[in-house]
């Protein structure tokens, strides 16, 4: 079990709290073994509620991506930006910003790694952010 996660509820808020400590965490259902990212208090597969925290390596491949040109107001200054869905090596998927690569150089299947960032601003939800960056060959 990873340190720092003990006693935290199995929630999205805990996911982001741990992210702020530089840990990408999911939970594994003790009843059926399913890995849940983000964490959930009740397993949708078997309805078990005994979970254990699992730290993820944070590496995977780009499954699909888009380049957002017209952004919501709060992100308008960052546009254009890339959002990808990454399939992590543990088998679960996470969406996130993809940085450090020109849109025309992005390939489906490209290997990427997570990196951690600061909260974007004040107020709810002032969660820390994460993003993906290509792994150098």
């Amino acid at each position, binding site marked *: 079990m990873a340190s720092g996660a003990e006693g935290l509820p199995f929630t999205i808020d805990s996911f982001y709290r741990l992210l702020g400590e530089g840990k990408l965490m999911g939970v594994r259902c003790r009843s059926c073994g399913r890995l849940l990212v983000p964490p959930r208090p009740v397993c949708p597969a078997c309805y078990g509620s005994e979970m254990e925290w699992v730290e993820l390596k944070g590496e995977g491949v780009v*499954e*699909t*991506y888009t380049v957002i040109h017209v952004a919501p*107001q709060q992100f308008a200054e960052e546009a254009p930006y890339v959002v990808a869905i990454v399939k992590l090596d543990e088998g679960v998927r996470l969406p996130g910003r993809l940085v450090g690569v020109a849109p025309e150089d992005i390939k489906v299947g490209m290997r990427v790694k997570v990196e951690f960032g600061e909260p974007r601003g004040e107020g709810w939800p002032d969660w820390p952010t994460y993003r993906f960056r290509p792994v150098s060959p």
Partner: protein
Amino acid sequence: MKGEPLAAVVSAGMTRFGKQPGYSARELFALAFKEALERCPELDPKRDIQAVFVGNMAGEGWEHQGHWGPICADWVGLVPKAATRFENACASSGAAFRWAVLAIKSGLIDVALVGGVEKMTHRTTPETTEFLAFASDHPFEQFHGLTFPGLYALMAVAHMHRYGTTEEQLAMVAVKAHKYGALNPKAHFQKPVTLEKALSSRVIAWPLKLYDCCPISDGAACAILVKPELARRFTDTPVYVIGTGQGSDYIGLYEREDLTTIKATVEAARQAYRMAGIEDPLKDLDVVEVHDCFTIAEIMAYEDLGLCRKGEGGKMIEEGRTDLDGDIPVNMSGGLKSKGHPVGATGAAQVYEMFLQLRGEAEKGRQVPDAEVGLVHNMGGSGATCVVHVFRRG
């Protein structure tokens, strides 16, 4: 064709979709209702209608107003009848329609008013983008700056990567939509576009461009739904509901194993086809309205509804098989792309279109000749809700 009537549509009404400056949602709903009344002189609304089912997605955002059931009942003179609002994102009035069908089938309600409405154009595009995004996953999609065009772009890239679907094929969906929307007097946009213009329009969320995206519109639509035995009391040409289905999919795209298909559509179609006795949709259906909020959504709908095999949706549009003179005409209304998409009204507007098509009342050039059986496909959000209905002319 098997398929017992579950309920009958005896009238329908719809405002023009587009910009309706100065009109709020309740007023648009009243205007759609007025058309339904005029079409059905035998209907005495205060005597006959027992319940009101209304779809509205996010009036809390656009108009700072919730509690739409009784508001719409009031504006159509039906207080104190039962009135309930349904929210399933862009499938809100498709869902309202389904639950009205179930209410009638239950035997508790004989005559229902079912419709939908949304007022959107008085707010800025960033505001509207934010209200629409309510229907996507907040902690992992909105949080990273994903928009609705962005979510469908993620599906488009997956589809292009796996099946070789092209940006040209996406643009062909828009060209077809505008071709028929140009003939629909209720459509938001009533002019054709060329493939070149669609392809060279500005990028919204690559690979989706402006012409791959439906517009922001105001509008309302409604139908009068009655139990089948009462249909002939109101009209000689009822349109029967013979199949209803609703399904769900994961709201977060990251939860989906396969981004090239929408489970909710597959499930809703399976239920509706079984009820209606549809064995080969391509042969058994004469006219189809699909939820083309983005061009890729129409291509995926062809596949998920079983109109073609998985991966062949792009080829289907390219070969003109969903044109008026093709194997199965799709979106002769102009679809969401050209007709417009006041989100909460769209499901009801699809029913309105099917009512016209199956009575042979659509305009020349977009009326499917002698259409007998039709399907409507209404999706919510990025496909986490889908409602499908199958209709047969009386």
